[in-house]
């Protein structure tokens, strides 16, 4: 019990004094996960809109597959990306292994299904006549999709914020492809894992508090967006 209390006190000190190493780790986590979420959003939102917009054979199967990938194990993503970018892998020549770029790629793969799936759900949640109205106005397909995505923006933004939450909280994939190298690829989750195994509870707890703080902000963001979305619908 004493260890935990000491850990908490030490953690508060690290945060209040803006300990350079803790801040470095926190910033890297935020940078990698923000980049991954933005890249995933750029790919996944149009992809989700395309799947929603067009009818094609096997559409239901594709949606089921995307939804199944929500629960994609992070270590599997880590393993796949590792095999691809390791020196003997097909993308080995890019020298990405143990870099923040590799971590970003892994997180993009991890959160893209979430954004695709939630984009489809958000668009499906719109009134069916909204799509028909846009088509009836003879909108080109890409303009029709843009209009509909704009109508579902709050629900889609919620999905993006949730995806960021999943990205920043994951440990398996970034550990495997980033290597948890101090000052280079160490993130909040990998650092917590390492420091806990070394008995450095103060640092672990400090990083944990920061991670929880980020999760709280993410959650607040989702709530605000969903509230605004509901208000728009009620109007």
């Amino acid at each position, binding site marked *: 019990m004493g260890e935990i209390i000491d850990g908490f006190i030490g953690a508060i000190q690290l945060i209040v004094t803006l300990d350079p190493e803790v801040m470095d780790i926190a910033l890297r986590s935020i940078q990698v996960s923000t980049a991954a979420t933005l890249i995933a959003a750029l790919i996944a939102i149009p992809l989700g809109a395309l799947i929603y917009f067009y009818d094609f054979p096997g559409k239901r199967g594709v949606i089921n597959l995307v939804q199944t990938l929500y629960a994609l194990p992070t270590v599997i993503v880590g393993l796949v990306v590792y095999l691809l970018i390791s020196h003997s892998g097909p993308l080995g020549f890019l020298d990405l292994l143990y870099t923040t770029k590799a971590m970003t790629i892994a997180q993009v793969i991890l959160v893209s299904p979430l954004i695709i799936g939630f984009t489809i759900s958000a668009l499906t949640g719109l*009134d069916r*006549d*909204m799509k*028909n*109205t*846009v*088509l*009836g*106005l*003879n*909108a*080109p397909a890409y*303009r029709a999709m843009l*209009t509909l995505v*704009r*109508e579902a923006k709050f629900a889609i933004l919620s999905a993006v914020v949730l995806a960021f939450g999943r990205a920043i909280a994951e440990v398996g994939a970034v550990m495997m492809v980033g290597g948890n190298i101090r000052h280079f690829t160490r993130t909040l989750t990998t650092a917590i894992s390492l420091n806990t195994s070394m008995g450095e509870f103060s640092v672990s707890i400090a990083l944990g508090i920061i991670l929880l703080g980020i999760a709280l902000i993410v959650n607040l963001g989702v709530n605000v967006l969903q509230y605004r979305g509901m208000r*728009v619908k009620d*109007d």
Partner: protein
Amino acid sequence: MTNTVLETENLTKAYGNKEVLHPTSFSVVKGEILAVIGPSGAGKSTLLRLLDGLESPTAGTIRIFGEPFVRASRKKIRSRMGILFQKTVLFDRSVVDNIALGLSYRRIPRAEQKRRAQETLAKLGMSEYATRSARTLSGGEGQRVSFARILVTRPELLFLDEPTANLDPLAAKDVEEMILQENAENGTTIIINTHDQIQAQRLADRVAVILDGSIVQIGTPDEIWYHPATASVARFVGFQNIFIGSANDGSVSFGGIVLPAPADRKGLVSVMIRAEDIILTKNTSGIPGIIRSLSRRGAFVEMYVDCGQEFFLRIPFKEHDSSLSVGDSVSLSWDEQAVVIGGNE
């Protein structure tokens, strides 16, 4: 005919094994308002969705503006059409931007979009709403804005799917006026789905009755309401007295009653008479019968009279003989033109 704007031939739609629109052929000429009436689920909306290309037919063809309406020509033809739905669709933007939406898809310069949208709003007497969020409009205002969003694109052919079904009577009247004005000023051809028969009579040049996925009759409002082609149409447009009769040599007989009929009618026919067209008297000059039931319904008295066949009558309360009661002997008569002889089903 060169004047034909829209033409279908054996247009059919099925979902799986269920045919929801049976082979349907009809045409609409320029400047015409065609009302499609029928009960819920009869296939009205399916027909309109096929005509607008929102769904593909299972069989049959559609020609619009003289061209086959197929995937390759859809964009081009659609640029001359518009569709309005029962449910008001407003986008999360200002009223003026809602109206300009269709113009923005047509790559019309932004300033021109605004000008035309403002002009349309002014015509609706809603200029002061321009910058308001469209989501703050009432149901009637919203539907007028939705309609204006289509009109501003200057369609030559309009599809309206129950456009006033969710509106209160005053708001519905505003939308009806917009429909008539658009038709009168721009000669826009309009196909309107409605379950409101009075609205169909008010707006339409011709009316199509669709029952169980088939258009069973197309004609002027007078033809539909006074000369229904079949018993089903008659029942749908409010005929309460429908009998199966046998026609031969210029007369039709049913249940012991013999009436004159067109000489070309032969075999089994439907004999149809509106309840309000039957005259009831106490004298014996007409078909004798006995009052079986009698009840007041608002401003009318409704009764069943047994003349061998049971007739349903609706008499304005003020014209009703209050001395009449159940069991009284009476006689029924009607104007010759009140009797409609239709096909048997």
